[in-house]
């Protein structure tokens, strides 16, 4: 990570740009990440939103944004960003807009759109070299409709559409690697519970041109079934247990930005959430717990 103005927590912005009063759930880990991101990006931005929980950030006549926003649809927010960016460039080039009126174009999407329906639009935007920032709040399921499993749901999690004893049978898709394989300007994972790491990444992304991505794991009290007060704690556990590696991709290289020294057992993270309760009661599902721990161990072994 290059030079940063965010060296200590005290360096983080104290005044917050994102307006209060949104209909997001109390304790929303996604909103936490978004407001941290917005503070650094600033209001000279236009957010192009995909369908998801944050569709409801702006409900007529209320918007939390001090800059601009365009709601599109679930699958095509990156294409909306393409249209806005291209139009801004055209208007600037033809002198029909003051250079000071230019905006940074930001896609805001949940994991449902990012890992699934919107993937081809995202891939297309990278292939066209679109100059934009893409923020995914990843709460590991279709949260806005009541937490059905998505391509981002972790193995074994109980969701509204995986209620059996083994939970979700699939495996969380590696979106970071899918995006990095396109060789864009920047990809990072982040989490609101690690604001300094997040701030540095937004700062980095802001300084680059081209397609830039931030995937923020977003603890979700409603969908993950825990007390809203635990959002930050659970987020920290995700990092310290190694479940959510904090890393970034730049110039063809992946760097881990926060390597947990002594990794906590994954079950320390799992047992905080109702969506994994069936792994512990009525009796411990050792096989499944072992499998989940094994996958995390294998990941960290592989990255050295």
């Amino acid at each position, binding site marked *: 990570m290059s030079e940063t103005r965010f060296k200590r927590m005290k360096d983080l912005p104290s005044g917050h740009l994102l307006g209060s009063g949104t209909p997001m759930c109390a304790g929303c880990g996604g909103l936490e990440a978004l407001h941290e991101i917005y503070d650094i990006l600033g209001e000279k931005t236009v957010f192009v939103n995909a369908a998801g929980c944050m569709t*409801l950030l702006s409900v007529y006549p209320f918007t939390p944004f001090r800059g601009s926003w*365009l709601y599109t*649809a679930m699958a*095509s927010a990156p294409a909306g960003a393409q249209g806005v960016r291209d139009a801004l460039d055209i*208007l600037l080039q033809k002198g029909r807009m003051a250079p*000071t009126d230019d905006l940074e174009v930001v896609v805001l999407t949940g994991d449902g759109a990012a890992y699934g329906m919107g993937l081809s639009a995202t891939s297309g935007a990278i292939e066209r070299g679109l100059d934009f920032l893409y923020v995914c709040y990843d709460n590991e399921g279709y949260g806005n409709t009541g937490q059905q499993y998505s391509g981002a749901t972790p193995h074994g999690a109980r969701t509204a559409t995986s209620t059996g004893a083994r939970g979700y049978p699939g495996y969380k898709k590696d979106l970071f690697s899918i995006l990095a394989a396109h060789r864009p300007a920047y990809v990072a994972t982040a989490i609101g519970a690690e604001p300094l790491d997040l701030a540095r990444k937004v700062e980095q992304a802001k300084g680059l041109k081209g397609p830039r991505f931030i995937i923020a794991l977003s603890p979700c009290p409603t969908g993950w079934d825990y007390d809203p007060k635990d959002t930050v704690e659970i987020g920290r556990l995700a990092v310290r247990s190694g479940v959510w590696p904090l890393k970034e991709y730049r110039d063809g290289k992946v760097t881990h930005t926060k390597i947990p020294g002594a990794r906590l057992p994954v079950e320390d993270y799992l047992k905080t959430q109702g969506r994994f309760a069936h792994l512990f009661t009525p009796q411990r599902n050792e096989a499944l717990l072992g499998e989940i721990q094994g996958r995390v161990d294998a990941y960290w072994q592989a990255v050295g």
Partner: protein
Amino acid sequence: MTRILLTGNRAAAWGARLARADYLPAFPITPQTEIIETIGSWIDSGEMDCRMATLESEHSMITAAGAAAATGARVFTATSSQGLLYGMEMIYTVAGWRAPFVLVNVSRGLASPLTLEPDHNDVLATRDSGFLQIHCATCQEVLDSILMAYRLGEDARVRLPVIVNLDGFYLSFTREPVETPDPAAVDGFLPPYDPENVRFRASAPLSQAVVVLGGSPYSYFRYESHLAALNALEAHEEIAEEFARTFGRTYGALDTYRTEDAEIVFVMMGSFATKAREAVDRLRQAGRPVGCVRPRLLRPFPEEGLRRALAGKRGVAVIDQNISMGKGGVLYGELASALYGLGQAAPVLVSFIGGLGGRDISAEEFYEMAAVTRSAAEQGTAPPPRLLYTLDELREVRKLQAIAHVERQGLGEES
């Protein structure tokens, strides 16, 4: 002003060029592709100052088109058939943004079965979206309608996107003489796009396309779009007058041909309507007072004009190049509702469905439709809707079915 031979597709590209479109989000699909290829080549040669972006789908293409219009650029895009349907969510969505742009649809029948040749089910699927619709019958009209569509969509009374429709093959790949207007005259007719307060600027924060909760605000916004679409009738009339003054070609919401003293009238949309004109001339030569009405605007629907044009006629043959499964011809239903309540002055409406998937309509069939309609008018009742389909065609299908090993035994047929 020069008169040159242009395909319908190239005429559409000329429309975009003369309208000085800033932005072309694109995706290839037959039979539209020549439009984006043509504009692409003009961009490459520097003849057109436009930016082109090939999106990865029509859904994305229409999103990008709407988003660029919502940012304040003049946008042109084009698609056909399956592409229009693939983008359908965004067709409805962007219309509500009240950010005008022009989309050319080159009509092609819809799957299934998949086909290449034209009918109007693709464009009619967008009927209720909030896009205005202009249907063209000649390559000249394609070019002219694009210029008019920008004026119409950008009119302060309207502010809606517009679809300009042309038929695949019959116009898209067919060259006809087209007058390409003088660019300076076009600039006078169509000034640069003023997005008013609908555009993204750092100095003026704007949240667009915002969700509403509750039926009341929803009803308000939706009905406002409807009122705007209705305003387009009056706006179109004014724009058409100015267009006629500037360029010498007149386009009404309805294109009427020899209807004044007609007793029987063909009503149909699109390029096949010129075939109806031809039939009208021949029928007139044979002493039959027949005319033709072609709605150019489908949305807004020129109801008053249709009532004026058709009140007092004896019979109307509505020829639908589309089919609504379980109902019949869409134009027939639209027209019947427009003419409802005319009482004694209401003509007998006879419904014909023809030209599906580009199936030709012969001169003899036009004559026969006039005769059937004439006899329905005399009897005062309409026969059931008729698909234009001959015994020979069914025999040909039977041959195809034999190759496809379709088992016809046990169907109660004579062998």
